């Protein structure tokens, strides 16, 4: 049966077809919907689906289930794998019993990430096999087959889609037939689960041998194939680049042989050598790092093939950003020394407005940032930020995020800054989900080391940026079961924080007062700004409007807040239809000109 599925949904269907029994993960664009699709099917398919507090935890929980023989999947984005790197690197030595598949989504571009790291490179570093789908249909098949590959090798397997598979929809063939899953065999006690140095030494040579076993397995994989063609020049394409190559060749009217690679590490030697047999020159087209290209160079050297290789090292193919058909067409033309018709640039538009993503109209983070900016007026303050919607607090006019590095780093970077910048106020902003993810160790560290800093937890009761997933601060699990929520304020107290307050950012006067107290506190202060994300609260508040008779056109509401609901009109500011009634602007308006829509003047 065909279904229109986004790549992430397709991988969830593939996991079900592959008999997944346990799924864990931490949200991260572009990976999140793999987990949420599985969580939505969890009750019906009788699988366990749990959001974990971070990727390290997610991988360990899934590994534990796989130790007992269950088929398990872990989902995360590329930078999440850094957090999970500690268990991953040694899990490769220990090995697994039940199939364990890590779906790690890469984001070349990047569209929604802080870097462009290549998970295929990570896989080869960890000495683990990796699958690289070209489209949602293949992603489904790979997700299904990955469990068996994992069990055959006794190793975790990585499935690495990119944004253009994750967030691409395709008419995908899904099967109702689910592989008969066996009751997990159970955990058997053995010295093999305890990684003493002596065991590590033994398992390292086993792991090295498994590289050849995996390579051999991929020799017959349907994820690699040759599309025949004519001539002695060819193209090797990895992952999504395959479709760009095929379309570019069609546009150029060329029929040259293409080797599609879906198993970039370990690269199957015989498949590649057989393809190179009939070629004098070959171009490697892959996004991000030269993972296929590096292995090809080794193979060509070892096998003394007189083939000319073109790719990233000759600067034919960029190492940064995304590829697309247009870019690949130019790369191929360059490689084949074809003159492309002079591209007339007919697109020469008038100046267009800059439209970066910004905080939504009514976003409680705007109110929180504004209160702390005002409380810190006159004091030299540094605002450290974190990963989430609130990174957008960096934008004009708030300018309330001075640093952003990685998950949880707001508190810790702040701790380092306050050691040196002793005369400045250091305020760390992080979200509720980020607080649970990696914020807590930094908070304990700050308290123990007697830092002087303020930590603001922007508690919008969800993991907003990635699509509103649950977290331990909420009274429901990933599959909607009720659970006792963890209280961030009480956690902070338990961490030894001497000043803890909870305040509603929509109450500006109260927020400002608490912010002032926190900044004056000698030690670590934690302020929990608690207000639900405006994108999940539908209605409830009356939109605001401007009473033009009272408005002084002072510009404060526009210039200080940067709310997308307020625009400059011919005769002063105008509040548009997207106003959610957060009321921040009304509380700030010096002339009382902002009133409830439909209210009496």
């Amino acid at each position: 049966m065909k279904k229109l599925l986004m790549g992430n949904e397709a991988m969830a269907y593939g996991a079900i077809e592959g008999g997944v029994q346990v799924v864990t993960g931490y949200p991260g664009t572009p990976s999140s919907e793999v987990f949420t699709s599985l969580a939505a099917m969890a009750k019906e398919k009788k699988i366990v689906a749990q959001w974990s507090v971070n990727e390290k935890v997610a991988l360990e929980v899934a590994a534990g289930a796989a130790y007992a023989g269950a088929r398990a999947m872990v989902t995360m984005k590329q930078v999440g794998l850094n957090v999970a790197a500690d268990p991953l690197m040694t899990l490769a030595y220990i090995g697994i019993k039940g199939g364990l598949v890590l779906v790690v989504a890469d984001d070349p571009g990047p569209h929604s990430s802080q870097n462009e790291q290549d998970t295929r490179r990570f896989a080869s570093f960890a000495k683990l096999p990796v699958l690289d789908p070209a489209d949602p249909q293949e992603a489904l098949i790979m997700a299904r087959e990955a469990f068996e590959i994992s069990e055959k090798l006794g190793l975790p397997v990585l499935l690495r889609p990119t944004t253009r598979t994750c967030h691409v929809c395709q008419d995908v063939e899904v099967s109702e037939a689910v592989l008969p899953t066996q009751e997990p065999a159970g955990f058997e006690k053995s010295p093999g689960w305890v990684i003493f140095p002596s065991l590590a030494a033994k398992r390292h040579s086993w792991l090295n041998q498994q590289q050849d076993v995996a390579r051999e397995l991929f020799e017959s994989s349907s994820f690699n194939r040759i599309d025949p063609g004519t001539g002695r020049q060819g193209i090797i394409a990895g992952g999504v680049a395959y479709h760009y190559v095929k379309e570019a060749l069609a546009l150029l009217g060329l029929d040259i042989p293409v080797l599609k690679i879906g198993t970039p590490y370990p690269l199957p030697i015989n498949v590649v050598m057989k393809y190179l047999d009939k070629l004098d020159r070959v171009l490697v087209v892959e996004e991000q790092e030269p993972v296929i290209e590096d292995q090809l160079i080794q193979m060509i050297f070892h096998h003394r093939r007189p083939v000319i290789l073109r790719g990233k090292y000759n600067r034919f193919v960029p190492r940064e950003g995304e590829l697309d058909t247009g870019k690949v067409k130019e790369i191929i033309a360059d490689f084949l020394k074809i003159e492309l018709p002079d591209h007339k640039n007919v697109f020469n538009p008038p100046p267009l407005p800059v439209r970066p993503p910004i905080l939504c109209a009514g976003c409680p983070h705007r109110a929180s940032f504004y209160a702390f900016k005002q409380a810190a007026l006159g004091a030299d303050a540094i605002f450290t930020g974190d990963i989430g919607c609130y990174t957008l607090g960096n934008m004009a006019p708030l300018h309330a995020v001075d640093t952003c590095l990685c998950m949880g780093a707001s508190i810790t970077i702040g701790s380092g800054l306050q050691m040196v910048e002793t005369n400045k106020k250091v305020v760390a902003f992080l979200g509720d989900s980020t607080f649970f993810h990696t914020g807590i160790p930094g908070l304990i560290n700050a308290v123990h080391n007697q830092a002087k800093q303020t930590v603001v937890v922007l508690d919008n009761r969800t993991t907003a940026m990635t699509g509103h997933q649950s977290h331990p601060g909420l009274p429901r699990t990933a599959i909607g079961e009720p659970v006792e929520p963890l209280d961030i304020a009480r956690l902070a107290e338990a961490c030894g924080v001497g000043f803890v307050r909870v305040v509603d950012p929509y109450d500006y006067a109260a927020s400002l007062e608490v912010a002032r107290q926190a900044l004056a506190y000698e030690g670590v202060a934690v302020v929990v700004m608690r207000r639900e994300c405006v994108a999940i609260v539908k209605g409830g508040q009356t939109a605001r409007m401007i009473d033009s008779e009272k408005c002084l056109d002072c510009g404060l509401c526009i210039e200080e807040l940067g709310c997308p609901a307020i625009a400059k009109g011919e005769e002063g500011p105008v509040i548009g239809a997207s106003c959610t009634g957060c009321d921040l602007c009304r509380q700030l308006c010096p002339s009382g000109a902002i009133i409830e829509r439909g209210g009496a003047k």
Partner: protein
Amino acid sequence: MRLDIVITGVGGQGNVLASRILAKAAMEWGLPVRTSEAIGMAQREGVVMSQVRMGEGAYGALIPDGSADVLLGFELAETIRGLAKLKSGGVVIANRQTIYPVSVSLGLSQYEPEQMISYLENTDAHYHLLDATALAGEAGTYKCTNIVMLGALASLGILPYDEKHLKQVMLDVIPPKLRDINLRAFELGRQALGGE
């Protein structure tokens, strides 16, 4: 039959839903289909572009620049930005609505609607301008601007499937309590470009 459609607009305008409806209709009509959508950070009031490719020979989901058959522009400035994707002589359906980003209110960038319209008029595109947001308001809520735009597209007879089919798929996808509003929106869009 092959058709590449680009949908541009601002986060929150229902761009992704429009893309999914067009794609689902294609799949149920028996055509291979691909879409690519902006999901994540860009959805927060930023530029969003969806790409829908239907028919044989749809390779990857990304439409090469200068080759889209149709541009559906939900917002004026984003329509102009999206013209980079359109092929010479392609079809544009442009909503007249302007959404001024905060950068304009803050004086950090410009927004000149008249210049934009005159630029559109001087391209070789077959363009249709309509006030889809006003029509959506007439139907019940400005939030169904996307469905007005689909109605307008359906009336041009360039889709590989008929209007009725698109309308039915739209109704299948929309929650039951919103069907009447969206049906009105679809009809108003259809009539706006001269559909009977």
